[in-house]
Each structure stands twice: as structure tokens, then as C-alpha cells.
């Protein structure tokens, strides 16, 4: 079974800053993206890696690749203006030699584990599409246009999405092509699959699998890498 890991590291993310910069945060002397790539490089279930970068971080990422040895083929391609566009370009680059499954994972989440990868693949094998999620611990509300509380969101059924997200290649390619035709813009690939009317299975993610967007987050990853807490 061929599985391609697709790692977006190109984005000018609106919410949490530029992923193209976030992946370069230093974690124990290496960049975050180096750690993320290593996690996929040593995972037996992964066939190859497609890394999507931007002009801004191309040099730094290339340096990271050249100063380590890798077992798996790693393709580096330039992304687009948005994360969605970057992923679409990554998927398009695989058409000539299409994998059966694509595993999409944020470059700025270096603490991805074999367990998460495996569980994602199992869920995708059975259901065609799957996303890691964690339960929600906090109270969320909607706010009206005047800056007052609109309502409190019922949270017993609520989960927070993370990556890895694993999809049948044909499904996710179709979903992205449809999005281009219909000018659908989302921030999450699983949402595009859902818009095709296909169900997306939820599998357990991990609170340790955090996304780096501040220096504190980088220190967190260092501390967690050394400590098996909440594994």
C-alpha cells in the first residue's frame, strides 16, 4: 500500500502566523521541520514525502535536508498563496505516479508519532478519509457583530481537529479540484471531503501533538520530547 506524506510548510496562515516561518523555530538545535520530516522518514508505513515550501523558507529548509541523511525520497515543491493552494499543488505533483493514500500533516507539528500515523492509516483504509481529533476542554462562544456574546456552544459533542489527516488520493484530489471549480475556500482538507458528501472518520489525536506558532510552543516541544507525559 503506497502512502505519501504531504507536509505543508509554505503558508501565510491567517490564524497562527506564517507556517513558512513557524516550521523554522529551533527545537533542540534543529528546526521544527527537520524533526517532523525525521518522524515520517523513519516510519515504515510511509512510502515517500512531499514537502511544500515557500520562497521565504526554501533556503533554510534545503539546508536542513542537506545536513542530515534520509531513507525515503523527499520531493520539495513550491506552494501557493494559501494552505489550500499549497496542498492542491502537492497533490497535483503526485498524479504521474499516484499513491493510494495521502497523509497530510502540518510541518509545524514535530511530535507526530508512529501511533498517530498508524491509526490514521487504519481509519482511512476502512473509511476512505480520517482526521485526528482531540476532545475539547474549554468553553466556546459565538460573538455578535457588536462584540457581545451571541450564545455558548454546546460542547458535549465537540472535538478539535489536528493533523495527521489521511485520505484516499483519488478522493482528496477530486475534493481539491472541485474546490477550485466552485471557488470553495476552507482552512481544513477534511472539510473539503465533507463537502463532497463523503464521511470523514475521527480518530484519537494527541494533546502532545501541538503546533508551533510561538517561542513558548517551541520550548513546549523541547520539554515534551524529553518527557513521556500524556504520551
Amino acid at each position, binding site marked *: 500500500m503506497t502512502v505519501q506524506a504531504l507536509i505543508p510548510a509554505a503558508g501565510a496562515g491567517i490564524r497562527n502566523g506564517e507556517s513558512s516561518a513557524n516550521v523554522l523555530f529551533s527545537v533542540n538545535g534543529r528546526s521544527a521541520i527537520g524533526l517532523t520530516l525525521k518522524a515520517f522518514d523513519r516510519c515504515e508505513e510511509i512510502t515517500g514525502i512531499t514537502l511544500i515550501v515557500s520562497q521565504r523558507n526554501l533556503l533554510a529548509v534545503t539546508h536542513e535536508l542537506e545536513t542530515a541523511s534520509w531513507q525515503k525520497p523527499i520531493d520539495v515543491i513550491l506552494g501557493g498563496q494559501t494552505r489550500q493552494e499549497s496542498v492542491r499543488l502537492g497533490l497535483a505533483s503526485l498524479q504521474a505516479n499516484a499513491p493510494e493514500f495521502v497523509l497530510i500533516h502540518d510541518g509545524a507539528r514535530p511530535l507526530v508519532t508512529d501511533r498517530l500515523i498508524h491509526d490514521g492509516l487504519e481509519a482511512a483504509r476502512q473509511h476512505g478519509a480520517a482526521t485526528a*481529533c482531540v476532545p475539547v476542554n474549554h468553553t*466556546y*462562544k459565538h460573538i455578535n457583530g457588536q462584540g*457581545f456574546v451571541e450564545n455558548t456552544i454546546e460542547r458535549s459533542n465537540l*472535538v*478539535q*481537529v489536528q493533523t495527521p489527516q489521511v485520505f484516499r488520493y483519488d478522493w482528496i484530489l477530486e475534493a481539491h479540484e472541485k474546490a477550485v471549480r466552485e471557488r470553495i475556500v476552507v482552512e*481544513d482538507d477534511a472539510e473539503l471531503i465533507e463537502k463532497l458528501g463523503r464521511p470523514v472518520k475521527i480518530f484519537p489525536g494527541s494533546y502532545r501533538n*501541538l503546533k508551533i506558532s510561538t517561542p513558548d510552543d517551541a*520550548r513546549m516541544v523541547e520539554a515534551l520530547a524529553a518527557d513521556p507525559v500524556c504520551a
Partner: protein
Amino acid sequence: MLAWSVEGFDASPEIARTVLVVAPAEATICTGLLASLRLRKPVAVVEGGETRHQSEFNGVESLAPQILDGSVARVLVHDAARPFVDPALIIRLLQALGQSPGAIPALPAPAALVQGLDTGRLQAFVRDAWGVQTPQAFQAHPLLEAHRRANADGFQGSDTASVVERTGQAVAVLEGNPDTFKITTPIDLVRAQIVARRRMHSTGGG
């Protein structure tokens, strides 16, 4: 954690007194801890209930005489498990009470939220959600009334604001502070240590 929270409010000029609501089994430890801090303002220790909501009700009720005679005009409700209190935020919240019965801090949800836990499949993406924090500030009388009504109705709030919202009163939302996160897991504790180091470093010592 408790010391950070209590001292954070004690240091704030706007705060006149604190009510600390604790589990009965921990009352002695907490009283001892409070005695070891050099606090400038009175702290009353009140017994909590089975749930956070119940504990909060007990705390608010303990202030009922002062609320009703007008000597307490505004109340801030704060999770003790959020040690990194922002003094500027306290001021902004209290100022907002000039225009509405309630004011709470919140930040945009950091990741996509989805309904789907019960079926194990994505059902619907929840857009534009804001994660609320504490302290949550309220005009005292409306807060007391809202809590008494909730108590009569058997309503359990997920946060203080939800108790007030159900009475139809306006709750303003202000920008929160990422440092004022809640410690609920061992991973949060790891983050708390990093934040504590950073904050102590920038003030030149604790």
C-alpha cells in the same frame, strides 16, 4: 498555582477582597497557604460544591449581604487554575462594566472545531468560535440575581457568563491574553513552567 492566582488579584488596586472557594478536604491546606503569602487584602475561604457551577454559586452567595447593601458593586470570577493573571485585562474588564452587566475575555479558537464526538465522524464544522477565559467580570447585583435564578431552575453553567446570558443580559467580549490559559492536564503544567520562567525573567525576578 493557587498562590499565583491569589497574589495576582491581591496586587491589583481595583480589588478590595477575595473569596476563595475550595473543596472541604483542602480547606486547611488552603488556609495555611494563604497565611504564608503576604496578602494586603482580606481573603475569605468558602466551601465549594460538587461542581464548578455549584462552587461558584456558593462563592457568590457568600457575598450576598455585601452585594445587597451595595458595599460590593462588582465581582470578578476567576479559575484558580489560571495562574497568569493580566492586571491590564482586569482594568479593561472592570471599565467595560460601565456599559454592560458582564464582560469576559476570549480568544479566537486556535484550531478547527467540529461536532462529531458521539458518532465518530465529522458532522459539522463550527465557525468563528471564541475560547473564553477568566476573570469574568459582572455587576454584582445582576450576577447574584442570575445565580439565584439558575439555582431555582436547576441550571448548571459551563462558565459564569452562561448563567448571566440566560437571563437575557448583555455580556461584552474583550480580547483575552494567551498566558491566562487554564491548567487542566499535565501538558498544561509543562507550559505553565515555561510561561512562569518567561514572566519571571522579564520582571527581573518573581
